[in-house]
């Protein structure tokens, strides 16, 4: 996984609440067996007008937001389906950071697995940034994971909270499975103990019973 330390990037504003993962990437793009190439599906339905043509007003279609690496949005971003295709599509589009007033749990978690930093800020801070971003061409933010700080072009600083373990993994770009496997002895010890406490959980599962 790519590490995330600090970045300054162009901000793209999505001024909506409760953006669900069905909107981030609709179902027809979930038939892939790859993690890459999902940019085409990102906000697929919202990018289009009723007649099927591209909506020039939708933020991702506006020239001024091309090359954006930070997505700025509102409450409860990423609710609904657990599809990791949502962060994959954001990453494929070039986003390394999502700033929102709150996130849904599964999406928030999925970001960390893919080198994307989700930053939750206070609603009034997000609203102020949204206002400035819409009003200011070329609006950029600096996101510093080490210091847990977002800095605006006029020097306003907003601190964000992040779980220390997740921070460390993202900061160093660590392989989560590799980390867990370092504790393999603990897992084995747990299994041995658990097998005496709850032996029915370790009984053979006879999957072929009842097969017609």
């Amino acid at each position, binding site marked *: 996984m790519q590490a995330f330390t600090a970045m300054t990037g162009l901000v793209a504003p999505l001024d909506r*609440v*409760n953006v669900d993962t*069905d*909107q981030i990437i*609709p*179902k027809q793009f*979930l*038939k*892939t*067996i*790859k*993690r890459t190439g999902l940019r085409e599906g990102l906000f697929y*339905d919202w990018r289009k007008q009723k007649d099927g043509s591209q909506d020039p007003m939708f933020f991702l279609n506006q020239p001024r937001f091309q090359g954006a690496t930070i997505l700025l949005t*509102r*409450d*409860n971003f990423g*609710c*609904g*389906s*657990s*599809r*990791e295709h949502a*962060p994959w599509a954001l990453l494929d589009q070039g986003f390394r950071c999502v700033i929102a007033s*709150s*996130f*849904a*749990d*599964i999406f928030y*978690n*999925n970001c960390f*697995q*893919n080198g994307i930093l989700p930053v939750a800020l206070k609603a009034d801070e997000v609203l102020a940034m949204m206002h400035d971003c819409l009003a200011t061409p070329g609006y950029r933010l600096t996101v510093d994971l080490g210091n847990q700080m977002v800095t605006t072009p006029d020097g306003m600083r907003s601190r964000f909270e992040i*779980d*220390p*373990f997740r921070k460390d993994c993202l900061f160093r770009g660590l392989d*989560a*499975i590799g*980390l*867990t*496997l370092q*504790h*393999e002895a*603990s*897992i084995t010890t*747990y*299994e041995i103990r658990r097998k005496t*406490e*709850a*032996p*029915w*959980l370790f*009984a*053979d*599962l*006879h*999957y072929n*019973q*009842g*097969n*017609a």
Partner: protein
Amino acid sequence: MAAQTLFDKIWESHVVRAEPDGTTLLYIDRQLVHEVTSPQAFEGLKLSGRRPRRPVATLAVPDHNVPTTDRTIGIADPLSAKQIQTLEENCRDFDITLFDMNDIRQGVVHVIGPEQGFTLPGTTIVCGDSHTSTHGAFGALAFGIGTSEVEHVLATQCLVQKRPKTMEVRIEGTLSNFCSAKDIILAIIGKIGTAGGTGYVIEYTGSAIRALSMEGRMTLCNMSIEGGARAGMVAPDETTIAYIKGRPLAPKGELFEQAVNAWRQLKTDANATYDMTVTMRAEDIAPQVSWGTNPGMVTGIDQRVPDPRMITDENQRQATTRALEYMDLLPNIPMTDIKIDTVFIGSCTNSRIEDLRLAASLAKGKRVATGVRAMVVPGSGLVKQQAEQEGLDRLFKEAGFEWREAGCSMCLAMNADVLQPGERCASTSNRNFEGRQGAGGRTHLVSPAMAVAAAVEGHFVDIRTWK
């Protein structure tokens, strides 16, 4: 020992190790896998040269892409076919048990887990699917995960987690006639909002919950995620134990007796506290119909479509205006005036035998309204078989409903069962997001009973007084 909630007990029995900052390596007893969220996980294992730690603890089934029509002719969509074929190859390569598309046991992953006795009380269960919360109905800690975590569980049988907060949702009293678990959960989401449960695990308690069948409890827990909670649970009781007994993968003989003794201890201690409690009276819950584009945008059938002008909170007003525009609904019209042209009875929320029995009993002797297309998609091959043995398929077909093969179908329309732009559907599924059932399609979430009545009348009606 301090008084514990049901959640505390399950959590603590699964801690492999805990760091001083609370980061916990949690043991996962069982994993369910389907074709959509697993290919990249298996690919990851291949690339890193890893093998599943306990392949026997994982069960795979294709459900999202499968056709619900005659399967002997194969799958028309080459991408769907490729994804299902990839699942088959991965299961073969990694020794994972697969119920393939032509196995009678195939079905929606959250229907077959409980049906097979794979889902057990006191366990941790995950799946790359947000509706994994369904399995909490058995007093399990069950939650949806992303594909990277699917790979993590395959490789390690563990997940790194932070302890969530606990929320009690207490429903006392008796439901009105024809009101169901679906109406309870929609009413709860209407009350707490789609993010009200974020960061929490919900435990559903109270006399109205105790009175629910296992099917009802699964419907309830299934939609916990629509309220933002990754997991919802109901403490196991005699209803739970009776459901599990004799299922193919459930423990047998002495092991079963041992398990039952442990399951009877799995409940929240009298003095335990939750981080938050929400209460409702069952008598206050009317049959629910969603009017908007998330499951929190819902109201009773005896109410009207909301008027954005009456909403003071600006965010909410904007969201309501936008939702009504997408749904093509006028403010203040009675919910009973909303006409539908499609009915979908199915999904991991409402496709079990009890749902179909009730729906069929209401469809009996009636006719689907002219111009309405109504389909019934059983949750599994075994549910379908059972329904056919009971003659339910005949009642549906005589009333003009389509009777189909098992799968996720029009809940998310990854297969050929898709709403056309502008079509309006009464659906027993779980999400009314924009385009969920097909680009431009409009979804109203309802119970199976409300769906049948809407199919017959061509518009929503109050099932409590429907003749």
